[in-house]
């Protein structure tokens, strides 16, 4: 079983956390800190296994991690998982491809930390196709990518009306004119609306 999947950057800032066992929020943060502390002090050329931290798991648990550029991907697993298998799952592969990160790669067209930062929800959706309830659901990358894409397509087809204005607005906001839109008082519109509605 996988107990938790944590992704954080070189400074320990969480980018995605997924616990398959309940921990209160503050404990979750402690675990992230502890894990970061354990993982970050290790050289890049040492092994990727770590006997678990004190907060999460126990003697049966291991931390298996990989470090990519600015991100750490950490899986906390027990002895029923194959160490190399999980490593493969994080990156190298079982059949031919990098399952998890590679999947991110495919879905975001070259993943970088910023993608994870701004699309945490999307990363979650991908992860849900790989691991479910602490157990590995699918290791075939094509299958994973296929399912994720189908779901995204579905979301797009639903998106229609509600998504368009939001996109327009975020374009406006990107222009970095923070004051202008905020000052418009929508309350006024609200008052006018009822008078129009009779016809």
């Amino acid at each position: 079983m996988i107990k938790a999947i944590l992704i954080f950057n070189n400074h320990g800032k969480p980018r995605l956390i997924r616990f398959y066992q309940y921990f209160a929020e503050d404990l979750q943060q402690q675990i992230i800190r502890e894990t970061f502390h354990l993982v970050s002090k290790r050289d890049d050329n040492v092994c990727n296994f770590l006997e678990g931290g004190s907060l999460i798991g126990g003697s049966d648990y291991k931390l298996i991690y990989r470090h990519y550029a600015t991100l750490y991907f950490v899986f906390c697993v027990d002895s029923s998982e194959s160490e190399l298998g999980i490593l493969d799952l994080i990156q190298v592969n079982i059949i031919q491809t990098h399952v998890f990160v590679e999947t991110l790669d495919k879905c975001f067209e070259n993943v970088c930390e910023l993608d994870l930062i701004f699309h945490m929800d999307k990363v979650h959706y991908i992860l849900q196709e790989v691991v479910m309830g602490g157990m590995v659901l699918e290791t075939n990358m094509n299958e994973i990518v296929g399912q994720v894409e189908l779901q995204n397509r579905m979301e797009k087809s639903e998106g229609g009306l509600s998504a368009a204005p939001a996109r327009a607005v975020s374009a406006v906001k990107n222009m970095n004119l923070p004051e202008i839109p905020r000052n418009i008082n929508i309350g006024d519109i609200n008052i006018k609306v009822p008078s129009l509605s009779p016809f």
Partner: protein
Amino acid sequence: MALKIVKGSIDRMFDKNLQDLVRGIRNHKEDEAKYISTCIDEIKQELKQDNIAVKANAVCKLTYLQMLGYDISWAAFNIVEVMSSSKFTYKRIGYLAASQCFHEGTDVIMLTTNQIRKDLSSPNQYDTGVALTGLSCFVTPDLARDLANDIMTLMSHTKPYIRKKAVLIMYKVFLKYPESLRPAFPRLKEKLEDPDPGVQSAAVNVICELARRNPKNYLSLAPLFFKLMTSSTNNWVLIKIIKLFGALTPLEPRLGKKLIEPLTNLIHSTSAMSLLYECVNTVIAVLISLSSGMPNHSASIQLCVQKLRILIEDSDQNLKYLGLLAMSKILKTHPKSVQSHKDLILQCLDDKDESIRLRALDLLYGMVSKKNLMEIVKKLMLHVDKAEGTTYRDELLTKIIDICSQSNYQYITNFEWYISILVELTRLEGTRHGHLIASQMLDVAIRVKAIRGFAVAQMAMLLDSGHLLTGNMQRNGICEVLYAAAWICGEFSEHLDDPMQTLEAMLRPKVASLPGHIQAVYVQNAAKLFATVLQKHEGATDSQAAQDTSQLLIERLPLFVQSANLEVQERASCILQLVKYIQKLQQKDVEVAEEVSALFAGELNPVAPKAQKKVPVPEGLDLDAWINEPPSESESEDEKPKAVFAKEEPKQSRARHIEVDEKELARRREARKQEQANNPFYIKSSPSSQKVYQDAPGVEHIPVVQIDLSVPLKVPGMPMSEQYLKLEEERRQKERADKKKKDKKKKKREKRGKGKRDDSGPESEEDITPAHQVDIVTEEMPENALPSDDDDKDPNDPHKALDIDLDKPLADSEKLPVRTHRREVLKSPEEDGDQDGITQEAKRRSSKEKKEKDRKSKEEEKKKKKKKHKHVVEEEPPEPLSEEPVQSEESAEVAAPPTSTSAEASDLDFWLSSAPVPPPIKEALAPKTSVAAAPDSEPDVPKDAEPDEEKSLKNKKKKQKKEKDEKKKKKRHHHHHHHGDGGGGDSVQNGTVEEEEEEEPLPPMSNYCLLAENSYIKMVYDIQGNLQDGSQVVVSVIFENKSNSFLKSMEFNVLDSLNSKLQRPEGASPHDGLVVPFQLPPGVSNEARFVFSVQSIVMPQKLKGTLTFIVKSEDSSTHEKLDFKLHFTCTSYLITTPCYSDAYAKLLESGDLKSSSLKLEGLNMPFHHLLARICFHHHFSVVERIDSCASMYSRSIQGHHVCLLVKTANQTVSIDAKCDEPSLLANVLDEIKQTFSQC
């Protein structure tokens, strides 16, 4: 309205979306918390809006904030709202948020049950998928119970995407609701052979998780897994299976033997390191499980060790790590083969990677021998000096102690050396393992009598040197050593050269800064020393020395009398009074020594740590009973009992910080300098020792330590362990020389006999004699100690609840709760909470009867065995056959006939005992194969497979014959009688049936009837309705290969009628056949199911169909076909549904039902058989039975009620029937009549 929508989207324009939130947080680095709190306020506003899109957006943002550590449980209700949105986009957001923050304590979770159920049955597979994924994270016992049935249905969903998720989530359901395991297991097992690899993988995953915790319950699946292992190409699945075998082999050594070969092949063939590694691991597990006396497996060990060596030598640190990890497993059973790689392992000790060093340390444990122990420990001591982090250093320390103390100090030849090693270890600052060293010191000193003199001298030096007293006590766990030192000095004080000096050392004022429990030992042992000193000086001419001692005690003890620690205080006051009294006596010149030492007379023997636990409780003694009235709550809280010998657990008292101000420090420093100057053993600080000391870890963080720079590294006056190394070397050399001489003499006497002896070679273990005769006292155990039962399992382990025997036939009460709305319509006695007395009565009765029935069926089984009656049982396919959950549960319930346990067990035995030749394995493997009942029911494994095989073949033939016979007799469905027992599904019925005529067992029944047969293949089939879908029935067909050839590419096709159609996959034309998802090796049978949709169910009908297949023999393959006619009887549209008697009465009163009747003449069978037959063949259940009259009920897939009143008198049976559909009723009655006309 339109405007409202427009307004909504205008509103939305100004809401932040997730990206804006993230950007905002990144732009407000300096006041992040403030920014986020304003964001949360905004989110709260958004959540108040009606627009679901706004809400979803808000929830999405909350999910992000949750990651940053913000509690979002206050929004739980809004999350549920978003979850229930009809749009996938929002639903997904809702479920994601829920999976991140819901848990068992979340109260709104109970509101989600119906929403989740709705989503699970959604036509959109992604809605279902999202719900399953979410549920997997927050499933609670309640949800598990309510939804288990729905999820089980999804396990047979048409989409593999849903199937695999449903299979996987079952594990979570089992954990939360263990009762579901047995009803669901057959279907889970069936998924192991799902055509979709993803589903298969999920099923393997779940069963592996289950089996890992309770392996013995899954042994019977070994053949199936074996088949998967040899056929699967998915490495992930292979790894899981191989890991599972690793857990199973310890329980069944024969399994191991079978595995060795394929695993070895995999090791040779695979290129995937992960798979190779797991194979090696499991081979190791196999080798461990096999007894060591297996010479032919040494090759496998060699192979494993070789492969592991390759891993360890690899430059990839991960492989190195895993190689060492696996090596340590071999070590336990085959230390010799690992020892040859000592060089490699010692090399790993110097690795820069701490994880690898730790693993190498584990291995060292098995590397040591009498010969190299000192050498290895010396190396470790060097590492201790170099070690940077305290964790690694502490690990080294424990390993040194482990290595030395293993198997009762087996490898230690010189205990003086060991004691000095322990003493050297005391110089470790800040270690957590002071108590470990202390307990070793105590253990050695107590158990090795010969060493006491030396040990006492060393301990006295430790007490004297005071280097352990320095530093700050709080951080210094090492001061625990003083506990041991003081005790040893006191207890064995007769060995002390100068007890007076030690006594003085023990009463120094600085001692008062030690933790309480150590002080207490000091005080107590000071008294022992006092007794020794008195004894020494008694009789001597000057009594002055003795009096001085008393004076010393009287002066120093008051310090301890003032101690805040109660125990110290008490002991000190006691002893102080005693000494005062003695002093008085001394002044009167009374001889007291004798009596004082009598206080401490007698030797303490070592007692095994578990001794107390093993004392059997005397009869009639209740340890839990109160001796006196229990004290009030508050009192018991206040007085926590204090451990007297508290060395094992960390002391709270140690945490008491003693404030030391600058002045005090300066004063102490002065005092220490003074002391050092006066101390004859003190070696004036040498530069080298200072240097090493500065290198000690963490020095710069401990200000006090810097003051103590002058404290020597070497414990003053200690003999160093290196010395011993040299001495030992010399001693051994000398011994060897002696021996050689003796040998030579011997040889001469032998007149230059046989081959030359290799003198140059290393001496064997036995040759090394211990330096001094060591008498290791064994620990005492109480008389009649109880047998060991050490491995207590954690009672809170959720997996404990899943330790369920899965082979046992399902009992009536075991079923998954069915959806509530159905429960309301048809109350079943088990589920109805508010019943009146009658039902409860019935319930009670039924449970009693069930027990009785169990007993009886066992008897029956026994009888069968005795007679060696080769009664042929067609083993029910373990899987429920239909798509429909209620029905399937019931068939699952009754699927396993009483003999199945033994049959299955002997199956496994058979499989295990047979040689690994493919055909017989496969035969036994196929789970749905009709297997003869346990051949002669012998518990022992047949010695050779041959006769066994023959037997089963014979049985098979016999079975076929019998089946044919049956068929001739009645061209109706038959079923096995056990199926019939439970066919009613309702315990009331079962009870009634078995109530009276106890002696007569029901004849075997089977519902499977012949579909078609030719020289190659035989098909039998059964039809079951699908309760979930009123327009579907499921046809289960068992294909049996009768030929000697391989049958493949089977295609099943039916000519659809207007009313009934075969369900084909999407996109297939109505004339396409369905591919049967398996191939049949010779003699094997397997089952496939086909779903038909029907419109009208009031008439029976027949469908023509064809089966095409390829017969592949050794040299040729031919196309063959077989025509058949599928007969859909009206009975097959009925579903056994339990009905409750007052609901039944209401139904009859309602007057909507048309009636009809039937008379059967000359029927000579017991009434309960009659009822059982109706129940079984026609899917009825007994509502009530009074003497020779019974009311029965059934329901069609389209919801028609069918009620029967069956009466019997003088071989005449009259059946009055009522149904809301007259033609259905007429047909059913016809079919009933036909059934009985065949009897």
